[in-house]
């Protein structure tokens, strides 16, 4: 038993120690090593290694660190959700290396940065960018899909290093080496089968091999087929989508979801996002959306009724229902498609602040007009936007009358914001002056007051309103006083 406990998984045991041990990827190796060696005298302060899972991205970083004498501080991007986590951990690491006068440098390795943008957290990305700007160590990131639009800010500051999908031959070569080292008897057909299934994912293949060897002591095709049929690796969103769309039978589409990293709520959004990219025929697209829409109705009913039995139907519709929709253009199912992250989540994250401001604004308007916030958003705020872009002077008076914040002005006026705010300041100043004058007037008592009254009565702008609230009277007096002052 003790020996068992000490056993390390093969993926770690056979991890490459030297750069040369990393399988294939010669271009990536030379590009990365020269970047690392010249750091910090580099064009881009960070490196983004990208490529399919299990092709050697992390391995190369570790091998290079080992060979060139760096420590690796590894973090998984999916480990931290908040900006503060990134800052706390990574900043400390960056500082520590100089603080203790270490000879060895340190690489900050952030794995799977595409996980960061999938979260509803824009702050994480910002913190990462800041880290790259200030870090005193090379920052290396890995990603599966670097072209994800949300990674653009990272792409801009990173040296992009591409890793190619490993060939079946590459994978078999490594598996054979491990079999020899472990003294495992194995059939070539079995290795072929494992490598085929791995689709270039060496890490997955080694794990499969280990599982077989551990279970049976030797590796045969028969065992491989028996043990490996239901894939035990969780599929990433991209694979999940591909498997759902490509499914020929309903059960395949359902299995694709059950083997996914995505839960059904996430899967719903991923499918929604990518449906129109996969299906080109309008009727197919409509059929697929019908299925997804009904799945969503079932999910809504589950929330309301608590009846989880309904989940099965929701899943049938969003997987099999979507997969079987391509009837006019069945070839669309197999078309290669670049899948996107659900834009809705990203948009929500990016606009969270603006939405909070809009909601606050809506409650001010709602209580002012005795209406609901929905009516305020629908009817009044669009009109306010018009006023704020067309007439900044008038808008400034509304800002004071409704006590709107500067952020709200920004939301309403857009690029006109500073103009509106300048008028607001001007009005405040005039109001202050008026207050001074009326204090002085109060001191000189009745006479002064009469004078102001006379000026007011003669002013053409004096109007009679039904509303005789104190506030309005104050306003009107203010206006008359203004014209009075300007005449002087």
């Amino acid at each position, binding site marked *: 038993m003790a020996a068992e406990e000490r056993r390390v998984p093969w993926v770690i045991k056979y991890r490459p120690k030297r750069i040369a041990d990393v399988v294939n990827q010669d271009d990536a190796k030379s590009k990365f090593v020269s970047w690392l060696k010249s750091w910090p005298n580099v064009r881009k302060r960070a490196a983004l290694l990208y490529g399919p899972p299990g092709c050697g991205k992390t391995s190369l970083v570790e091998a290079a660190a080992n060979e060139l004498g760096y420590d690796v501080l590894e973090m998984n991007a999916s480990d931290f959700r908040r900006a503060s986590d990134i800052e706390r951990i990574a900043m400390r690491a960056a500082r520590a290396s100089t603080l203790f006068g270490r000879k060895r440098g340190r690489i900050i390795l952030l794995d799977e940065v595409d996980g960061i943008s999938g979260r509803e957290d824009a702050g994480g990305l910002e913190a990462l960018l800041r880290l790259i700007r200030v870090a005193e160590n090379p920052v290396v990131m890995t990603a599966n899909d670097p072209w994800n639009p949300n990674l653009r800010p990272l792409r801009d500051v990173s040296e992009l290093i591409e890793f190619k999908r490993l060939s079946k031959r590459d994978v078999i070569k490594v598996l054979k080496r491990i079999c020899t080292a472990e003294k495992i008897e194995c059939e070539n057909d079995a290795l072929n089968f494992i490598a085929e299934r791995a689709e270039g994912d060496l890490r997955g293949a080694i794990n499969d091999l280990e599982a077989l060897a551990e279970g049976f002591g030797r590796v045969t095709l028969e065992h491989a087929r028996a043990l490996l049929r239901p894939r035990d690796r969780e599929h990433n969103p991209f694979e999940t989508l591909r498997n759902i769309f490509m499914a020929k039978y309903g059960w395949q589409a359902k299995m694709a979801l059950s083997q996914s990293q995505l839960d059904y709520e996430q899967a719903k959004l991923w499918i929604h996002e990518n449906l*129109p990219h996969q299906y080109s025929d309008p009727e197919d697209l409509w059929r697929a959306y019908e299925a997804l829409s009904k799945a969503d109705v079932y999910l809504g009913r589950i929330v309301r009724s608590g009846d989880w039995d309904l989940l099965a139907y929701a899943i049938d519709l969003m997987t099999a229902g979507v997969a079987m929709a391509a009837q006019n253009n069945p070839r669309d199912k197999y078309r290669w498609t670049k899948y996107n992250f659900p834009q809705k989540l990203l948009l*929500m994250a990016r606009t969270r602040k603006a939405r909070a401001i809009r909601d606050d604004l809506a409650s001010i308007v709602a209580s002012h007009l005795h209406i*609901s916030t929905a009516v305020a958003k629908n009817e009044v705020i669009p*009109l306010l936007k018009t006023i704020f872009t067309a007439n900044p002077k*008038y808008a400034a008076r509304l800002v004071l009358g409704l006590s709107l914040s500067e952020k709200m002005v920004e939301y309403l006026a857009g690029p006109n914001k500073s103009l509106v705010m300048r008028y607001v300041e001007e009005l405040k100043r005039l109001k202050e002056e008026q207050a001074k004058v009326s204090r002085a007037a109060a001191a000189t008592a009745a006479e002064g007051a009469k004078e102001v009254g006379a000026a007011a009565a003669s002013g053409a702008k004096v109007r009679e309103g039904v509303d005789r609230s104190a506030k309005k009277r104050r306003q009107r007096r203010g206006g008359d006083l203004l014209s009075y002052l300007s005449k002087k």
Partner: protein
Amino acid sequence: MSSAATAFEEILWAEKYRPRSLKDMVNQEEIVSRLMKFVKERNMPHLLFAGPPGTGKTTAALALSYDLYGDEWRKYVLELNASDERGISVIRTKVKEFARSKLPGHIPFKIVLLDEADNMTADAQQALRRLMEMYAENTRFILIANYPSKIIEPIQSRCAVFRFTPLRKEDVIARLKWICSQENCEYEEDALEVIYEISGGDMRRAINILQAAAALGKVTVSSVYKVVGLAHPREVREIIRLALMGKFIEAREKLRNLMVNYGLSGTDILKQMHREIFSADLPLPEELRVLIADYIGEVQFRVVEGADDEIQLSALLARLALLGKRYNLKL
């Protein structure tokens, strides 16, 4: 409008020119005179004000409160909006808290003003009915609703029901003119007619549009159109057009923008789409308008039942794309 010459502060005209007292109200004469009687007797039953938006329901309720309590009316009136309160339990807590405090001798009762009451589910209305009974001794409820038929029978039977009728065109326009004279703003007669048409007789909406148009300068037909065009209808129409032309992805992008940036709910957008479908600005075969209206109805049902507005509305767009292809539309 010469804004520099007037005051430092401005508020929304819909509030600025809201009649404060019942005697200032010029419409709904029948209703107003009955409400004045309540003020005089300092007693009243629970009230249900029903009628289309912008016909004076809220104004009448606030004016009644003002006439009963004077300047400190806010102390004795609890204003709630059923669409903004999260569920009946929140309403219950607030009402309980409000009803508990003692009444000064000269105050006959307090008022709970519940707006958009027809947005409450039947279950919530049952709970509301119990609340009305529980605190009947020292509070009166004024319920406001667009559709009295959506208020459950037991509540209707406990209330004096007042039906507010749509305002006459000349009344709305006269009011707009009066406001223009108060604000010293110039206007074209035709422009006020257009405002009336766009607002569908909704006084509040008409005044809001007037204020926005006045902010652009003289109120003209084109400034009115500009003001309302800058709001949503044009964008909603564009979404429909893109979808019908088979540009699904672009249509969905615009839809998303409308939902996330403007904060419109799926139901809001569906209602606006429905309005657009029969508009002359969308040249569609008449039977197609009916088909689309039917499907919008179906989708609205699913939005209420479902979990994700965006998916439901995308399904509608996919349907439009299919119909557009079948009818071989060129828009």
